[in-house]
């Protein structure tokens, strides 16, 4: 084969590969740009301030009331509830898998957690709606079987695989010598885990929590199906037992019915933009934390 032609071909292929490499950046920017493009017109109708502090979400009223506060707080409530359940359980499970479990159990638990990660969110929503919700409502004597805490519970189990596997990576990355030194000083295995291993794996665990948060706040189908979707501002602990409406559920429920290019349509894109910014922040911080800890360990 003619070497010149081959060189040209290789050059072309390599440029194509390079372009594909940069594609991820292009896509992130494109998503941001498109959300922005369809979200900005909402400010012909309202202001950032009204959007952020408005306490009423009645998008089809005349004029529409586009207060995102109840939706934002609804999302935060469900997410924080999910983290309260999944972080302690997930980190404990990770510590168990990497430090305590007998070998055969480790070999069973890890794939089991991975299987958990594959269950689609709509299935969790379905199970919450038909099985867990009615059961919990009976147990707690609630009027309505759809409430914020139910969403938290379902999300906790959905975020669990991510938290377990990332925390486990972080714990595993703690150098063996640290453990050996601690044990040699007479500490029990538990003291070593609690005082040495977990603190040393701290930044990785924090990253796992942040990523779990990003996952939980962006979860859609489950919360749409189990949280009742009432756009109230949740208050105090009882708020977990009442219905809320999250940002993701609002987009999913209303986009099909709303008219194109109306303030309501743009407001839904504004919610999408807000979600994008929140998850972007969580992921970027998590990434920085992981990278920084990686450098210090090395």
């Amino acid at each position, binding site marked *: 084969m003619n070497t010149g032609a081959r060189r040209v071909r290789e050059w072309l292929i390599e440029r194509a590969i390079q372009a594909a490499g940069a594609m991820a950046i292009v896509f992130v920017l494109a998503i941001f740009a498109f959300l922005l493009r369809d979200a900005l017109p909402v400010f012909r109708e309202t202001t950032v301030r009204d959007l952020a502090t408005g306490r009423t979400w009645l998008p089809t009223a005349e004029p529409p009331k586009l207060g995102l506060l109840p939706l934002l707080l609804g999302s935060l409530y469900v997410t924080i509830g999910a983290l309260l359940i999944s972080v302690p359980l997930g980190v404990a499970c990770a510590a168990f898998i990497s430090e305590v479990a007998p070998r055969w159990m480790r070999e069973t638990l890890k794939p089991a957690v991975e299987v958990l990660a594959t269950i689609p969110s709509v299935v969790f929503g379905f199970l919450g709606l038909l099985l867990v919700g009615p059961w919990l409502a009976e147990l707690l004597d609630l*009027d*309505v079987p759809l409430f914020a805490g139910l969403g938290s519970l379902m999300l906790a189990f959905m975020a669990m695989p991510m938290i377990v596997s990332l925390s486990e990576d972080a714990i595993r990355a703690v150098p063996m010598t640290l453990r050996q030194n601690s044990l040699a000083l007479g500490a029990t295995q538990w003291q070593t885990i609690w005082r040495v291993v977990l603190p040393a794996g701290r930044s990785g665990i924090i990253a796992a929590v942040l990523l779990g948060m990003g996952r939980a706040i962006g979860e859609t189908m489950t919360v749409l199906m189990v949280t009742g979707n009432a756009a109230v501002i949740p208050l105090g602990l009882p708020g977990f037992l009442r*219905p809320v409406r999250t940002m993701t559920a609002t987009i999913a429920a*209303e986009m099909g019915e*709303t008219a194109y290019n*109306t303030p309501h349509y743009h407001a839904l894109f504004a919610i999408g933009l807000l979600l994008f910014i929140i998850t972007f922040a969580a992921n970027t911080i998590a990434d920085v934390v992981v990278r920084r800890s990686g450098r210090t360990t090395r």
Partner: protein
Amino acid sequence: MVRVRVMAALLALALPLAALTGGCGRPESTSSESGDREAVAQIGSTTMLPLAGRWQKAFNRKQPEVDISVSGGGSGTGIRALIAGTAEIANSSRDIKQKEIAQAREAGVTLVEHVVAYDGIAVIVHPSNPLHEISVEQLSDIFSGRVTSWADLGATRMGDTQVISRDSASGTYEAFKELVVTMGGQDKTRDYAAAVLKQASNQAVLALVARTKSGIGYVGLGYLDESVKVLPVIPLDGGEAVAPTVENVASGDYSVSRALYCYTNGEPRGATKAYLDWIEGPEGQAIVEELGFVPVK
């Protein structure tokens, strides 16, 4: 070796794909390409979806040469598709919006409205609820959050009301707001309270009310079943409570009802006209009645 070649070919696909994303108009509509058969795409309201499905089946038994495709997605989706030219008929369970009329005009589309059925909206509570009737004013107070306890309505030991509504973008939601929450426009400042639970469909509202002792909600007549108790409604001008039945909706005695629409681009022609005429005729309207909606004539 072959496999590697395939890989290389796949890699080479990357660029054209990026170019594809660069720019291209809508490829020709596929719905109108089935040879000699005339195609009618009917898109829109989820409330009307069962209705549209039955219409299509029955109509195609008579005239199999017309290729009718039906899909849901919501009233907004249907009207969007009609304006974009990807649908011949848009099903809508709500009145068209000013904004949509303007968008249609911009796109050179003239929206023509056809009322194809009425839908009575029944007020439902848990079977254990002691109430036997309810007035429009009381309903307005409940749904706007002015009354939050069953005791205020004369039902003791029922606790607080759990108000359950359709989702805020649905046609039923808007119709109920117009007819009941604002009391037929008497008090336009009233709107749904924030604490109202929103459900994706009639079915979901029904299921939730059936499971919620202190619940109250509304659903289309066609969805009623034994699992809930239906409350007759006392109209705004007083008088006897009226039960939501097909007869009472048709006669106008039961006031909580709304129209279901089909929109077309201009006056319908050809297969679309034949189909719409058939829907508005006796056979189409028989299906309307069978599914628990109220016929137009």
